[in-house]
């Protein structure tokens, strides 16, 4: 009889990195479906290229670097999908390809692979695309569905009366903001779909409520204090998508709940400030990235009292 010897625990929880990533993908299904419904097949192509590029780049890099190939953990799929959802449907297909390659190779793998990147790969890739090709990245189109055009014909210039819905949220009804009948990136427009994904992740325990709720709540509160419309501020731009799917990235936010609260409040303040000063049409990407950078510091400065001890360890 050949018995295996190992230390306990001898049974582990069923959850693995792969199942967690799968749950995020499931949570992104409503948003993905809404994006494709609203923007048509162009959106589907952008998403497909983003995901394929992310997975292929990860595979090639890990092969070349002689690391174990871990594409089956699905984290590259999540990165690619989130990046794709952050792009305009009219983006040329080289944009998602380059973006995903940057996210995976530069931001993730060169920093040591999964878990070692200090910035969210999809976010930084979006930030880099935004800075490199601002004209292609910050011009948003009205969903083709709204214009009554079902083919993938590029929307005419009159469809883009402003760069983003954010600059004129007063121009849209709350219903349209919720349903996604506004210009924006593929994933950010349909708030209902994002909320369904959020509830799914809460229900299966993928994420906790703190970061999204406090992030969005801070934006609402600050906007109200500064005389804006909190509801429209919450429903405009990439705030909900960012708060639910990007600020909650485990790797790049603090470990302790108290740290996550600080992180979320920081994100909320930065978004409001960037939006108010109109330095960029949309502040969510840079706000989260800045708080990603602050995460090691927050982790260092927060602690909790260990059982049986009196003094806090700083």
């Amino acid at each position, binding site marked *: 009889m050949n*018995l295996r010897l190992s230390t306990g625990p001898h*049974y*582990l*929880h*069923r959850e693995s990195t792969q199942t967690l990533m799968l749950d995020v993908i499931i949570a992104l299904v409503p948003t993905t479906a809404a994006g494709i419904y609203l923007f048509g097949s162009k959106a589907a192509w952008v998403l497909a290229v983003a995901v394929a590029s992310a997975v292929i780049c990860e595979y090639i890099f890990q092969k070349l670097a002689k690391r174990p190939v871990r594409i089956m953990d699905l984290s590259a799929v999540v990165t690619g999908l989130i990046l794709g959802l952050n792009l305009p449907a009219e983006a040329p297909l080289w944009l998602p390809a380059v973006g995903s390659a940057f996210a995976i190779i530069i931001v993730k793998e060169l920093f040591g692979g999964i878990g070692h990147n200090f910035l969210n790969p999809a976010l930084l890739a979006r930030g880099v695309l935004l800075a490199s090709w601002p004209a292609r990245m910050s011009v948003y189109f009205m969903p083709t569905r709204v214009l009554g055009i079902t083919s993938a014909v590029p929307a005419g210039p009159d469809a883009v009366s402003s760069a983003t819905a954010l600059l004129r949220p007063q121009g849209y009804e709350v219903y349209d903001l919720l349903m996604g009948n506004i210009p924006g990136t593929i994933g950010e427009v349909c708030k209902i779909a994002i909320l369904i994904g959020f509830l799914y992740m809460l229900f299966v325990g993928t994420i906790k409520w703190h970061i999204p709720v406090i992030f969005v709540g801070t934006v609402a509160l600050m906007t109200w204090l500064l005389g804006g419309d909190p509801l429209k501020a919450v429903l405009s731009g990439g705030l909900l998508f960012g708060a639910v799917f990007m600020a909650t990235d485990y790797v790049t936010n603090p470990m302790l709940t108290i740290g996550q609260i600080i992180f979320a409040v920081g994100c909320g303040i930065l978004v409001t400030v960037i939006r108010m000063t109109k330095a960029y049409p949309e502040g969510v990407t840079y706000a989260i990235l800045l708080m990603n950078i602050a995460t090691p510091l927050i982790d260092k400065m927060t602690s909790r009292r260990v*059982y*049986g001890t009196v003094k806090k360890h700083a």
Partner: protein
Amino acid sequence: MRLSFKGGIHPLKELHEGKDKSMHKPIKELVPEKVAIQVDMHVGAPSQPIVKKGDQVKVGQVIATAVGNLGIPVHASISGAVTAVTNRQMLGKKASAIIEITSDGQDEWVELHPLGDVETVPADKIIQQVKDAGICGLGGACFPTHVKMSPADDKKIDTIIINGSECETFLTADHQLMLEEPERIVNGTRAIMRAMNVKTGVIAIEDNKMDAVKTMTDAASGREGVSVVVLKTKYPQGSEKNLIKAVTKREVPSGGLPCDCGVAVFNVGTAAAVADAIMEGKPLVKRITTVTGCVKEPSNLKVRIGTSFQDAIDFAGGFTEEPGKIFAGGSMTGIAAPNTDVCISKANNGIVVLNKKDSVVKSPTGCIRCGRCIDACPIMLNPQKLKELCDAGDLAGAKKRYIMECCACGACSYVCPAKLELSASFKEAKDKITARGV
């Protein structure tokens, strides 16, 4: 209201903690043909064998005497001839000194010296009787019970907790004991309370054993100072520090013992053994052990100390399929057995057989900082950070972050989606820190 503590997990929730198979199986007694009794079962110096090959012994006869302050004697668990006094590989790291006895089939006891009823026996005689009976903590720690019952003069104990939480997966031995023999547990509780001059005795049981709550409440009714509390089903509820927090809201100070916060904790099985020692004069020669997993008839066995795993498994009907791993205890902290010749010690509350498929160890991947280990830690440590420090060899840093407080419950390893061996690393680091005096 269900008492509880912060942190912790609910392991194998989808399998009812793995307890279904053996739950409510009546206790069956197993008297084996041969036993191999370790003399180093308890915490403290191993006992000194006083028999040699060829000696005839009766059940309950002392075969090894206590050594040192923490020492307790060891007794023959079957009657017959001593067939070997030697060293043999058991569950410990190194081979253990054992005394092997082959049965004469008589199961004849030595003359017993009961003290009498727990309510009337002189309180000052109880502790010596407990020591002479070779009783140590039957929950798994095997700390000598008489030592726990004799705290230093400056430690004032006001509460005794009798631990019936049985939070470990797969085990149902304590549960069945509470169902079948609640009187023994309550008698033992009263004996301990009287010996330690403590007015409050609390029997703590998790809410997945409400039938045991009822039997224990009935048995405790009318008994002075004894009450039953219900705990939330959560792991590691039965770990001393967490149990004390849940029941009394107190915390054992860092580096201290339960007596430093006025509490002493005893397992229900230990309490029952104390009752036997006082009322019947019987030393600890048997205990209840759950045998479950891939065996034909998962059971709760009353086994003699020194029964081999093979005998216990055969008594439970044998394997249902080829075993891949066998461990002593529950799946969270159980110790894997190298073979089935190892024997049941006083600490051994369960034998769990896994098949080949469930024995596969998943290889670890990278930490994704999900924070599940932090939520799981019942001691409020930061396992993620500690693992980083341990991997980097920074033992001083780990110590500064209270790694020595880790209770090795394994909750962090259980929840880790990257399958990192967190608690195993911490145990290794703690051993190194102790050995090198970092």
